[in-house]
């Protein structure tokens, strides 16, 4: 088996790791609140790639009621939750912008003790 030309689970996992790393770095480096939201979307996508890859390569039919679609259904719900989370986060940022005229997260320290 050729590790370069035979695409296996590991190749997809490494792509997903790179996506997750980019997501964490984006969340930590951006000072724009929308940039942080973009980082969260990257992390959720990394999780989705993982779910689909494991579903494709490692799924075993262990019970008679299993449909073999667990990973795909999980990923559908990840996408649903990501869309919901983006809508709520942007509504919050819009309110924040109306009050402070900026989306710099460093300025959001009103509740700081």
């Amino acid at each position, binding site marked *: 088996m050729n590790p370069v030309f035979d695409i296996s689970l590991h190749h997809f996992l490494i792509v997903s790791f790179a996506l997750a790393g980019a997501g964490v770095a984006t969340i930590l480096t951006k000072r724009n609140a929308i940039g942080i939201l973009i980082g969260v979307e990257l992390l959720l996508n990394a999780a989705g790639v993982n779910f689909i890859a494991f579903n494709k390569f490692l799924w075993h039919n262990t019970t008679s009621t299993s449909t073999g679609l667990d990973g*795909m*259904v999980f990923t559908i719900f990840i996408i649903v939750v990501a869309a919901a989370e983006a809508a709520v986060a942007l509504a919050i940022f819009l309110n924040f912008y109306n009050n402070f005229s900026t989306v710099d997260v460093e300025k959001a320290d009103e509740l700081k003790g």
Partner: protein
Amino acid sequence: MTTTLAQLGTDAGLQQVAPLLFYAVALVTVLSAWAIVLSQNIVRMAVYLLLTLTGVAGMYFMLDAELLAAIQLIVYAGGTLILIVFGVMLTSGNPFLKLRPKLWEVFVAVGLSLFIMGLLLFAKVTTHLPEPSATIEEANKPAGYDLVHEIGRGLLSVYLVPFEVAAVLLLVVMIGAAYMARRRAT
């Protein structure tokens, strides 16, 4: 050894181009994801996010999850990204405004992200994954197996509870977001 895409797939023509296609899509996905980290311009970040999301949709295509790829393109690239672009337009007086992080923050962030990637890689290398079997998976698929059909049945039978919870979540989010983002009479 481990199962490869070529062993799981049945299309002989696709097997020949699969590695090249995979590396092209993987390169676009990973490079544009890291371009988001390096970019300081929020509009460029949104464009790179579009490239990343499209690349992930390509990954789903290669993993035989065509429905997921379509959902990814419609909901993520078509919906969430438009929402983010609208957010950018509504929340910045100057769309080319740069909010730069401090240098030590960049070092801490990249260091932590490299640490997390190393941790994930370590977990992957040390975990003994069960032997994947193409024959088991193929044996469970009857003739005329249709992925969309199966997922539709699954959502209304085995996965009914999470489906309903997601429906309620979307309703709550719709009302909550509309309430929070409304224009207040001052």
